[in-house]
């Protein structure tokens, strides 16, 4: 009788006491593995935010100008959708408005990469089994992964708070903590998603999709209201950041939402993780067919990439419809401010504000499509380094045929998703189907140049090919932030997107399109020539 009573707490203690054993060691190990990626990511994000006050001061030098731009940005629903409402015309307030949301997205992407890398990636590769067989508690790997992401986000928050302190300490602290808070909330959200799929790639894709949903919810909410009070905005962690109102009478209680989301989601992730086996997920793998119809390297490439092509297609079409629908509101802009007009023109072109807005959106889709093309080309890298390319190439398949299958999907898929974004914009806008499809096609040469660069880097050395992400990220940052700031033209020119005609609305200009296409063809050819000559990596 007494044995039965005492055995309960003993059993409970056995389950509970050492669950976190080894967390500290794993955390140090994770930080060591990420010693390059996290510092670079944190530094780029922080610099993005910290470089803004200087640029804003040079573009809008007087308080009157800043008040003017703030008023106009606040009255225009499309611009509110893109950047959120302006709550303060101080330098700090404009900084938070202009880059806060984007820095938060970067923090969210960092969290999702870090958390998947140290949870699902480790399980999928089988490394987790070795770790778990050591003196490591059941909950230690997930805890260490989340702590790694929290350390990274806390560092980012502190850097931003310290760097912007000159604009007002409480505002700087609020912005830093808010951006870090979005990162933390997405860290635990990623931990939940990672419990549902056995594939690290799918976990990243799904969480990336949720990040996109968070952005769209905030954009939709802000296009409807000018004070961030829409329910849609409140559904999005990125919306919480603007509702924290850094540099505009901070509403500190909003930080509680980040804490609550992080904690509740983290609790859920632990509950889910505790109910499944290592390497497994809640969506059990179904048996496949005993015989197969795949017969070519190209068919295999399609089979491996079709899910990702489908995801990007749906995302581009939906985002196109959403932004197309916002276009009409762009004309609300009180167009009597030369500076504003100049910014809009530099972002999108000379003619009507609606066309300028559409051209900006088309350009944005182009830059995001570059991320698709790079990820698709880098499948070659993944296949090669995981040793899956080796048996394919030991068959009667030449290297060009093997690479060709993936490249057709990468470069053709870029055309497909851009056309879908153009179609979506036209559907949402309600007119200009032809011009919008044409404008989307004009983005292709620049997208292909970045894809070609990835092919070249992979052809020279698979280790280098990851650098294509850096180049695509640079093009994206220059495109996002560059036009509003006084970035030298020489820097803007480094991005292939800077050379494209601004369509719709601008005049079509063939030389840059043809030259960029030629550059892309050259890069791909050189990359394939390199691939044929080099050793396959072991």
């Amino acid at each position, binding site marked *: 009788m007494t044995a039965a009573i005492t055995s309960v707490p003993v059993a409970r203690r056995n389950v509970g006491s050492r669950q976190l054993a080894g967390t500290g060691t794993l955390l140090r190990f994770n930080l060591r593995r990420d010693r390059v990626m996290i510092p670079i990511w944190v530094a780029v994000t922080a610099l993005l935010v910290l470089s803004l006050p200087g640029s804003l001061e040079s573009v809008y030098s007087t308080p009157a100008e800043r008040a003017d731009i703030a008023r106009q940005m606040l009255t225009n629903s499309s611009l509110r959708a893109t950047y959120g409402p302006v709550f303060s015309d101080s330098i700090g307030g404009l900084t938070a408005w202009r880059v806060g949301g984007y820095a938060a997205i970067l923090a969210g992407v960092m969290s999702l990469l870090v958390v998947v890398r140290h949870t699902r990636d480790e399980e*999928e590769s089988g490394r987790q089994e070795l770790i778990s067989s050591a003196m490591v508690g059941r909950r230690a790997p997930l805890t260490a992964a989340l702590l790694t992401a929290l350390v990274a986000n806390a560092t980012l928050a502190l850097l931003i708070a310290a760097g912007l302190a000159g604009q007002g300490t409480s505002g700087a602290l609020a912005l830093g903590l808010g951006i870090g808070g979005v990162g933390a909330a997405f860290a635990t959200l990623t931990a939940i998603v990672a419990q549902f799929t056995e594939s690290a790639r799918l976990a990243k894709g799904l969480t990336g999709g949720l990040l996109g949903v968070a952005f769209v919810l905030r954009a939709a909410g802000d296009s409807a209201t000018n004070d961030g009070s829409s329910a849609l905005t409140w559904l999005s962690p990125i919306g919480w950041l603007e509702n924290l109102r850094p540099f505009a009478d901070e509403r500190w209680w909003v930080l509680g939402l980040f804490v609550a989301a992080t904690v509740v989601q983290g609790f859920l992730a632990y509950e889910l993780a505790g109910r499944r086996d290592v390497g497994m997920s809640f969506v059990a793998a179904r048996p496949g*067919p005993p015989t*197969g119809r795949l017969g070519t390297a190209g068919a295999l490439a399609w089979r491996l990439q079709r899910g990702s092509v489908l995801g990007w297609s749906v995302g581009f079409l939906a985002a196109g419809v959403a932004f197309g629908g916002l276009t009409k509101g762009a004309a609300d802009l009180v167009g009597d401010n030369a500076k504003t007009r100049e910014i809009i023109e530099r972002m999108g072109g000379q003619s009507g504000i609606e066309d300028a807005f559409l051209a900006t959106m088309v350009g944005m889709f182009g830059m995001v499509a570059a991320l698709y093309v790079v990820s698709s080309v880098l499948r070659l890298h993944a296949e090669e380094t995981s040793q899956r390319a080796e*048996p394919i190439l030991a*068959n*009667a*398949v*030449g290297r060009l045929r093997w690479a060709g299958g993936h490249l057709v999907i990468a470069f053709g898929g870029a055309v497909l998703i851009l056309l879908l974004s153009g179609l979506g914009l036209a559907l949402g806008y309600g007119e200009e189907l032809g011009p919008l499809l044409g404008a989307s096609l004009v983005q292709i040469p620049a997208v292909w140049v970045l894809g070609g660069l990835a092919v070249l880097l992979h052809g020279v050395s698979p280790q280098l090919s990851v650098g294509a992400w850096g180049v695509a990220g640079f093009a994206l940052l220059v495109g996002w932030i560059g036009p509003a700031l006084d970035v030298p033209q020489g820097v803007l020119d480094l991005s292939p997107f800077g050379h494209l005609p601004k369509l719709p609305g601008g005049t079509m200009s063939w030389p840059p399109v043809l030259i960029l296409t030629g550059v892309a063809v050259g890069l791909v050819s050189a990359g394939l020539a390199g691939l044929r000559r080099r050793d396959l990596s072991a």
Partner: protein
Amino acid sequence: MTKASPAVEVSGLHKSFGRTHALDGLDLTVETGEVHGFLGPNGAGKSTAIRVLLGLLRADSGTARILGRDPWADAVEVHRRIAYVPGDVTLWRNLSGGEVIDLYGRLRGGGLDKGRRAELIDRFELDPTKKGRTYSKGNRQKVALVAAFASDVDLLILDEPTSGLDPLMEEVFQRCVEEERDRGRTILLSSHILSEVEELCDRVSIIRKGRTVETGSLADLRHLTRTSITAELAGAPNGLARLPGVHDVDVQGNRVQLQVETDKLDAVLRSLTESGVRSLRSTPPTLEELFLRHYEDEAVTR
């Protein structure tokens, strides 16, 4: 290509990765129709040599011919007549084993013999409907083995193909290799399982630090090594230690243990019979001893 020409002919092959000389003048000849064992300690360069033969790596110098052709320049043509099983098979997470087997067959051109495929899946007890990572290590090897044995090729290149297989499946594997040999196919078998090599291989090459140190039939190689003898004699042994080629003599009363180089066996037996033999146990050199000699050399020179 005449029947007499070797399936694989490699001479003076060099390959470096940075400062590491993976292959340092490797020679290897695999005659058509034989099962050739390819042995060497870890890191000796076996897999590098195989990857050069598959045209995945390009040799720095030396010549390599496979089925009479250049492995780098004629890779695709050569691969139509080759099946390869790596030591560590990686599969795609979302493809079933059956799909991968058929994919490999079709990529080679011509597909697989359906009857043979079904028979092999049955013999290896493989579930072809499972996907990628749900297979154990041994089962992933089976996927590649079924694809290789069910294909109609002239040369099988097997790089430690049985890692992870249980002893029953190891047995099935050995039967399959014998069947392939009986069909006149050539097999290059890199392996650490010496009983497997001893059972299956007509000839072996032993490599160390990227260089071939022994090559020949097992009988040839045995000739180069020592037979160990344990004998119970009627009287005291007489002058055994002075005989040429005798090593490690251990005499305890009338009982003697010694090692003798196999080609000096005659004199030793004569000397033993002079003293009168009560019992005699002679153990031929195993491949293991042969191999360990090279391992030990490796350990000493290191």
